[in-house]
């Protein structure tokens, strides 16, 4: 069972994630957008969206450090277990609270502001359901596992993180995950569900994060692309004369 849940399912989700993005990019560049709803409503978005996104950037950063950096490395540079723990919990809590608060505002807005609600697709609703469950479970793990220590202390850096790295190295070890508390198991599973959904939601905008803007020249010049005039390729059998 744990083989299935923590090896087969994650790899299926990962495959969907990768292939789904390739497919979407190939066939639906036009639909690849944030679908901003700011034109409809600004007051709530102005608070909710930055809270959510900045919080989330913190959360993502935290996950990268927590999951990808082995404990032995931080030990090696002299960061004590205790210090790491305090920073991770405080930082995680802060980012998490921002994310949850921001998301609450965004969901409230989606539900109550008429124009925003009617521009909400089925996919948006499913996406928010998964997102909310993942984030709430994540918060619960931090609060219950690390602060209140309900059900005893669990050092995820020796369990979940190791499993995750083994998973990425295509040498997965499901027993580590099977030994983790239920909260962590669910968080990971629902998160993989979200990854599988990802390419089919508006979340694709994350992969367009416009970092190139910092370095590119301000004004873009482009020649009309002579190999592909108009919005479609010339049909077979038609040659251009020019």
């Amino acid at each position, binding site marked *: 069972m744990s083989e299935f849940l923590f090896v087969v399912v994650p790899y299926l989700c990962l495959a969907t994630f990768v292939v789904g993005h390739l497919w979407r990019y190939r*066939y*639906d*560049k*036009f*639909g*690849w*957008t*944030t*679908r*901003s*709803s*700011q*034109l*409809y409503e*600004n007051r709530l*978005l*102005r608070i909710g*969206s*930055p809270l*959510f*996104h*900045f919080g989330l950037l913190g959360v993502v950063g935290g996950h990268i450090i927590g999951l990808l950096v082995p404990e032995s490395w931080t030990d090696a540079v002299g960061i004590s277990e205790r210090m790491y723990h305090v920073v991770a919990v405080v930082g995680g809590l802060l980012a998490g609270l921002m994310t949850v608060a921001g998301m609450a505002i965004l969901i409230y807005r989606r539900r109550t502001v*008429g*124009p925003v609600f*009617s*521009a909400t*697709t*089925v*996919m*948006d609703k499913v996406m928010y359901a998964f997102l909310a469950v993942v984030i709430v479970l994540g918060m619960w793990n931090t609060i219950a596992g690390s602060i209140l220590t309900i059900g005893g202390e669990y050092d995820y850096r020796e369990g979940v993180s190791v499993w995750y790295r083994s998973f990425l190295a295509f040498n997965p070890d499901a027993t580590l995950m099977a030994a983790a508390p239920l909260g962590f198991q669910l968080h990971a599973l629902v998160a993989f569900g979200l990854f599988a959904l990802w390419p*089919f*939601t*508006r979340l694709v*905008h994350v992969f*367009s994060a*416009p970092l*190139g*803007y*910092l370095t*590119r020249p*301000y*004004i*873009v*010049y*482009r*020649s*009309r692309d*002579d190999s592909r*005039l*108009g*919005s*479609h390729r*010339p*049909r077979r059998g*038609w040659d*251009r*004369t*020019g």
Partner: protein
Amino acid sequence: MKVMAQMAMVMNLDKCIGCHTCSVTCKQAWTNRSGTEYVWFNNVETRPGLGYPRTYEDQEKWQGGWELTKRGRMKLKGGGRLKNLMTIFSNPKLPSINEYYEPWTYDYSTLTDAPAQEHTPVARPKSLISGKDLKIEWSANWDDDLGGSTATAHLDPMLAKIADKVKFEFEQTFMFYLPRICEHCLNPSCAASCPSGAIYKRAEDGIVLVDQDRCRGWRKCVSGCPYKKVYFNHRTGKAEKCTFCFPRIEVGLPTVCAETCVGRLRYIGLMLYDADKVLEAASTTDDQGLYEAQRDVFLDPSDPEVIREAEKAGIARNWIDAAQRSPVYALINTYKVALPLHPEYRTMPMVWYIPPLSPVVEVVAETGEDAENKGNLFAAIDALRIPVEYLAELFTAGDVGPVDAVLRKLAAMRCYLRDINLGRDPDASIPAAVGMSEEDMYDMYRLLAIAKYDERYVIPPAHAEQAHALEELSTECSVSEYGGGQHDLFGEGSGVPTPIAVENFQMLQDRQTSDSLSGPENKSGRVNLLNWDGKGSPPGMFPPKDADS
């Protein structure tokens, strides 16, 4: 010297009768789709007035365009690159839909569906954004012809800049129309604000376009453009803007707004300019120097050296010919009667305007004096500071000098031509008073008053040899190949982008077969009467037909 060609336009404001034909035909051609109900690539504003969107010219509020840093470098007024990215999650300067207006339609069906009753049923306005009842309080032309201006016109940001108090009592005011499209700037701040680099300037003809496949909906260009001429399609989640009707321009036809202009006041032609000098000119320290600085960027297409450089830059011979015959060049550089709109935004706009003499002429005529007399008109231009200062705020960052000079030329032309029309001897001292020769004055008159179609629009076709593959001439595509292109699951914009002609075809079909008023269940068919082209019946107008009848 790096020669580039730019398609440009000049509008002669004296001739605009404010009929909005240009806006309506443009809307029919480009923005009669759901998601763009509120969008007018071409709009006609009554000035003084708030404009569309409301008070867009107040850059202290909207932060569009460029500004100079203390060290004299160009910077986006909305903030540098980092600030631009940090405010991406919620754009602090994005005008809300209410600044444009909330588009609406009417539930016409109640007129026919309502049961017999004592009072005549009324069609209530319904918002096209929320589908709910709407109290109409503003629209793109709320203050048309100074309607309601006693209540709103004092909010006109340009009036705030001129010293004298402008009165809005009927007898004392002045008025003219300002048709606006995207300026297809040489230094476009919309493109510079776009985080994904999806907005580009076409190297061949300078037309500024949004690549719909690369736009990611960051909606930064909307606030970046000081003229507020990029719009957010709230259905597809992508930015859209005036295209200078490139599919028409490519085959040598004028834009739709120009083609259908009732006053025949639009001129389209090429300008050659030195791309290496644009940034320097845009960085001119003094706002009032920007008009001259931009004129300096333009190149004389008859200068042999310019021709040589242009050919080196790969500009075709027939394009250079067209640039030499360009009416736009003549109005901007030869006669110097056209002025840029808001050069102080530093985007180097390329739709220029001949300021209207009519506010002056009207005042003179009302006094009972001869409004075609040079002395009277010149004296009036000197005396009527308010209209002149107002025009200067629009066209020269407040410098009345160039506006004065243009108005004098127009006044002189009026007087000089009257003598000719009445069969009197032309008076050479009149053109001389504005520094023109008699011949130049007559040529200018010809261009402004009686120029024919092919003199007003000198548009060299783009590579006619490729024409069959250009988008709108898509002889290779049959409409039926394109499915609905709508995957509602991902949002309405998903799917393969549909060529414009196909999109219109499908909309028409939807429209003719759809039943609902504005319901989200049929978003693509949502139209209001304004969008209706007279064919079929607009949704909601008549009771639904049975499916099989």
